[in-house]
């Protein structure tokens, strides 16, 4: 567990402490998040990486309380640090007034697939203005003008015309821009992006990320970017948290974690990336084995079964250990890896 820095940090936007979110299905319990802690700062991007099913999206959904019906935040806290002081999100009623006042206004979210995330029967303008209607005091005309401005600033050509169009007339990249326009319409302090470019092609992906980077720099938005692409992490992240089976196994500033990975899973992820230009015979090391059944987890280190460096101690759950002021790892053997790196 991380030590909290003494005194309120003015740049701190959100802090999650020891979050446990469980999902129930068929009388079984999936401990989807099993003690997750991290901070998001203004003007910084935190990337959360991990393979499918590791709890990245559940983390995002927990922050906005957009969890599926049969799931619950069991323990831990999510503290939003807004202009009016800290708010414990996990204590708010799921779809209650105070939660809704935070959604969209303070913490906005964009989703994986812009093809399905927009409502097909309402114009893009309507879907932006709806947000302004609920979270601002702008009049009808001002809302319309603001919607056009937002589309323009997202780089959508002919916004006066486009604002009246329906999502099916937009291309995939344009829809994600429109989605970001909706998300940014009330100047949220935090933007959560859940794999925003998975459904888009690579050139569009670059444009979308550039847009997000601009928002971060110009408006100081804190960004939480969920991805499974280490390349994206290297390019955009300030901080990175690597998740595996509902836990953060390693977290820290992006330079430290990528250059000096201390958890075997982080290492394995980095080794599994194909590099352009090395030809088709390059060694890509796939991670052996499969993720354990989420309903029947090992009691010790979740990664032990697939780990090259496994020792007997791994049958016990390793604690999260702070190895520097900002770098922490959950592995029994991290000291050895640190020594390796130092050589």
């Amino acid at each position, binding site marked *: 567990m991380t030590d909290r820095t003494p005194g309120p940090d003015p740049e701190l936007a959100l802090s999650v402490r020891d979050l446990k979110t469980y999902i129930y299905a068929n009388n079984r319990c999936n401990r989807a998040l099993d003690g997750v802690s991290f901070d998001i700062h203004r003007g910084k991007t935190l990337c959360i990486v991990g393979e499918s099913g590791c709890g990245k999206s559940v983390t995002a959904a927990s922050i906005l309380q957009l969890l599926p019906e049969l799931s619950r935040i069991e323990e831990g806290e999510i503290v939003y640090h807004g202009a009016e002081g800290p708010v414990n999100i996990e204590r708010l009623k799921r779809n209650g007034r105070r939660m*809704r006042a*935070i959604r969209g206004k303070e913490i906005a979210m964009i*989703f994986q697939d812009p093809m399905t*995330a927009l*409502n*097909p029967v309402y114009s893009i303008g309507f879907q932006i203005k709806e947000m302004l209607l609920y979270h601002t005091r702008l009049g009808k005309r001002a809302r319309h003008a603001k919607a056009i401005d937002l589309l323009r600033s997202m780089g959508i050509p002919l916004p006066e015309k486009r604002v009246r169009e329906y999502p099916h007339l937009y291309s995939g990249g344009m829809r994600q821009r429109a*989605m970001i326009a*909706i998300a940014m319409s009330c100047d949220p302090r935090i933007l959560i992006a859940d794999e925003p470019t998975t459904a888009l092609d690579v050139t569009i992906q670059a444009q979308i990320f550039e847009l997000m980077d601009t928002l971060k720099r110009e408006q100081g938005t804190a960004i939480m970017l969920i991805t499974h692409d280490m390349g994206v992490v290297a390019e955009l992240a300030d901080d990175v948290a690597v998740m595996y089976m509902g836990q953060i196994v390693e977290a820290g500033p992006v330079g430290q974690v990528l250059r000096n990975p201390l958890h075997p899973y982080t290492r394995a992820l980095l080794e599994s990336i194909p590099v352009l230009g090395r030809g088709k015979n390059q060694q890509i090391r796939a991670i052996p084995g499969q993720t354990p059944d989420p309903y029947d987890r090992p009691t010790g280190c979740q990664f032990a079964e697939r780990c090259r460096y496994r020792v007997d101690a791994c049958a016990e759950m390793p604690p999260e250990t702070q190895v520097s002021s900002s770098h922490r790892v959950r592995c029994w053997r991290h000291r050895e890896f640190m020594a390796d790196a130092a050589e």
Partner: protein
Amino acid sequence: MLTYIARRLLTLIPMAIAISFLIYLGLDLTPGDAVSHMIPPDVIGTMDPERLDELRESLGLGKPFLVRYWIWITGVLQGDFGYSLAGGVQISKIFLDRLPATLELSCAALVISTILGSILGTISALTRGTFADQALTVVGMLGVSIPEFFFGLVAILVFALNLGWLPVGGRTLPGYDSFWDRLPHLIMPALVLSIMMTAGVMRYARSSMLDALSRDFIRTARSKGMPEWRVNLLHGFRVALTPVIVLIGFRLPVLIGGSVIIEQVFQWPGIGKEFLSAVRSQDYPLVMMVALFSVMAVLLASLIVDILTALIDPRVRLGD
């Protein structure tokens, strides 16, 4: 949009002609003709066959099939629907007398079933898995599976005979012609006629609504901080509406068909009741016109469905 409607109306014409031809052909193939119906069977045997042929000739029955069809269809297009064989009344007059009653009944049933079905279906979807949902599901299954005439008879027994709240049947009493006088007569047949369709619309609206609520844009709407009513109704129901409208549109002709039985049960003086007696007495000109009318209702309903779909769903683009 207007050009689309115009074009659709134009394509209706050849379809209507083809169907009218089939109707005429079908009834021409049935045994017996107008003469054999006009003259009692015991008299026909004793009559001079030459006199019979003369009679056929004078009625135009001696002409070839296509010529007879041509005479009929041009007449219909000019508004001359011909005469009913029973009583020799102008068919157009029968339509003018009877159609308002049928339309009144069908429209009332359509409005009731649309509103009630959508509301109940939405409630059922929003309370999915609870007692209310299960109860509505059971009621819906009963409504779909029990025939309407049964409901009709039970309703007459309970509300008209035992409780005496509503009249047994008919559309009006002599001398009481205002809408408010007629309303009590309308209530029972309209409700009974709408039962089956309400149940159908409800089941369909429920699944359509559940489908809409599971879509990604619902989560988006929630993530924007929209209140639940807006998420469910503006985002969910609005999207769920399109398939429901299509269903209701295509049930429209069924409603006219269904009213044949209900009109009989409640002695409602509509086209359906007239149709039944026309079939029974082999009154072919009238049967043909009623059949043609039903077909036109089907064609118009499908046109209305297309226009409505385009109005509520921007993804459906009408060729303009």
